[in-house]
């Protein structure tokens, strides 16, 4: 399959700060690709380069076959971009925004309505409401509709689910899956690790560097090895105590429990008895299922 997004050694500096450090990866046609990383990892900078809003300092990138520097004009007609910030006209109505963006690309709303119909469904009820007066989830749907109305080949979504409730987030990912089925290549970034598992392939990015690129399944493969949960009534003393145990590589909070990564020689039963000696009577340790977040913490730690 051919690559729709091709990024080679992309580097961008802001003075001393290196926002992107020789980033390379590619996204194949018709896939749902996730860019996962914490705030400040360089995700938005990467999006701005891919959408031709920013020039790279080094390296090259091509989207839909067009170079972001040389063919930026042609590139702009092939992409749909949804920036992190709501960027529609708050003083135009829902319908006006949609028709405005459609006409800028020289298309009619009704010609491409099939593409946005499932997304736009809930917005149809208030076509004359000002975009600025919509709720967060509705704004996001309208922004996605406007980014899609010219039937782009590539959809670039920068943290689309930030600030959206859990139900709307799940619904949004459902929509992305539908769009993918229609052959649109999607690059979506998020700082929610749980969303990463809904992508076909993901790139982990931290401090401007790509840590790893693979399918979520492959990435967490082997993560279960020597990964344990630990819990106790007094979580903080437990964390301190576990870190002093032999064969423990790392221990960090993970939701309501602690996750322990250990060497092969780690014995959970020995560890529990040692913890009980230290007065943590109710300490428990049991095997854990690894996920992207564990991987991310591991990679970020190795990366320094």
């Amino acid at each position: 399959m051919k690559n729709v997004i091709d990024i080679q050694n992309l580097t961008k500096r802001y003075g001393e700060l290196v926002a992107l450090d020789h980033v390379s990866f590619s996204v194949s046609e018709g896939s749902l690709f996730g860019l996962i990383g914490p705030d400040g990892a360089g995700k938005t900078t990467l999006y701005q380069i891919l959408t031709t809003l920013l020039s790279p300092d080094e390296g090259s990138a091509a989207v839909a076959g067009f170079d972001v520097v040389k063919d930026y004009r042609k590139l702009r007609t092939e992409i749909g971009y949804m920036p992190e910030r709501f960027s529609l006209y708050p003083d135009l109505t829902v319908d006006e925004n949609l028709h405005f963006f459609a006409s800028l690309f020289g298309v009619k709303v009704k010609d491409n309505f099939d593409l946005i119909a499932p997304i736009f469904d809930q917005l149809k009820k208030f076509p004359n409401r000002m975009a600025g007066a919509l709720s967060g989830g509705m704004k996001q749907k309208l922004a996605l509709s406007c980014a899609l109305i010219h039937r782009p080949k590539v959809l670039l979504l920068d943290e689309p689910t930030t600030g959206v409730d859990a139900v709307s987030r799940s619904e949004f990912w459902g929509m992305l899956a539908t769009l993918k089925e229609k052959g649109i290549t999607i690059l979506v970034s998020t700082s929610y690790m749980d969303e990463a598992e809904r992508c076909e392939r993901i790139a982990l990015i931290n401090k401007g560097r790509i840590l790893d690129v693979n399918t979520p399944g492959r990435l967490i493969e082997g993560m279960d090895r020597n990964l344990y949960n630990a819990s106790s009534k007094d979580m903080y003393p437990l964390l301190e105590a576990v870190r002093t145990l032999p064969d423990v590589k790392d221990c960090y909070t993970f939701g309501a429990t602690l996750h322990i990564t250990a060497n092969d020689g780690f014995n959970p039963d020995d560890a529990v008895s040692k913890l009980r000696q230290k007065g943590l009577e109710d300490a428990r340790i049991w095997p854990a299922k690894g996920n992207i977040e564990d991987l991310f913490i591991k990679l970020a730690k190795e990366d320094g």
Partner: protein
Amino acid sequence: MNANTLKILLRKEVSLMKRNPIIPRLIVAMPILVMLIIPLVATLDVKNVEVVVVDNDRTELSRRMVADMDASEYLSVTGCYFSYDEAFRQVESGKADAIVTIPKDYLRDLTNGKRPELDLKANGVNATKGTLGAQYATMSAAHTLVRWQMEQGITIPVQEAAVVNLYNPTLNFRNYMIPALMVVLLIIICGFLPTLNLVSEKETGTIEAMNVTPVGRLEFVLSKLIPYWIVGILVVTVGMLIGWLVYGLVPEGNVVNIYLAAVLFSFVMSGLGVFIANRSATILQSIFMMFAFIVVFQLMGGLFTPIASMPRWAQCITYAIPPRYFIEIMRSVYLKGGTVADLWMQYAALSGFALLFCLIAAVTYRKRA
């Protein structure tokens, strides 16, 4: 340049402008405020200079001189005193602005061919009032003398000084201000408003969405400027109508000259506005930058203080201030009936500035960082 895209963008701008809570009202209210109130307030006309008279001659001529002064539109004789000291106390207490002393035997000396002198003293604390008051009093006295002379059929060796003010015969300050005040309207409407509009797209983030579309920068910027150019021309028209209906002032020259200057000046202000917008990230920054220019433009463009009364170095600076040329054209066309041929230098300067500012605006405008 894509005409269709421009049409779409313009339609959007017009609907946004209509929904804006301030702009449409400002466009209506500002010309009215500027044209109706400022000419009345910002006047340098000196009226009702209060004169006290010390008449030591007490002849028909001296009485007539005093009566003529009192009848003048600009002077009012508030009292006649027997001694200079008494009159001076009136000035000291602020009840009078000037003292006219007519010497003893003034009429007799005059008839005998001598050259008697009137004594005139004016309070110089308010420099304008003092100077003009003294001037008015001198003119009034000279006028009385000439008329009296003609009636008597006597030729007295009095130097005749007839002052005729060309172009603005009544020296009405309003006639001087009204044409120039339109500069204020254009500075705000064609410079300030599009700047705010452009920067607000940056603040709301909509500019990002626009920049990833195939919309060219020229279409985008033109879509911001054209509505304000049209509004600017409308406002100049309203200003001229107010000048005619309220002040009875109509341009001596052809209005085409005025519109040409207004269009050129709009381009100058828009270019500057776009440049400022390019350089500011927030509305606050752009307001401060614009304000710096507005203050200099209004105070050094010759709107209030005549350029000729500025120190030489300041006069040199005014050549770099575009409103100067617009104001010169407006005053000349309104009062002297100037034409493009007469004012080619001013038109050329305005065109040069328009070109320069638009070029700077184009060069500094970037869709990508």
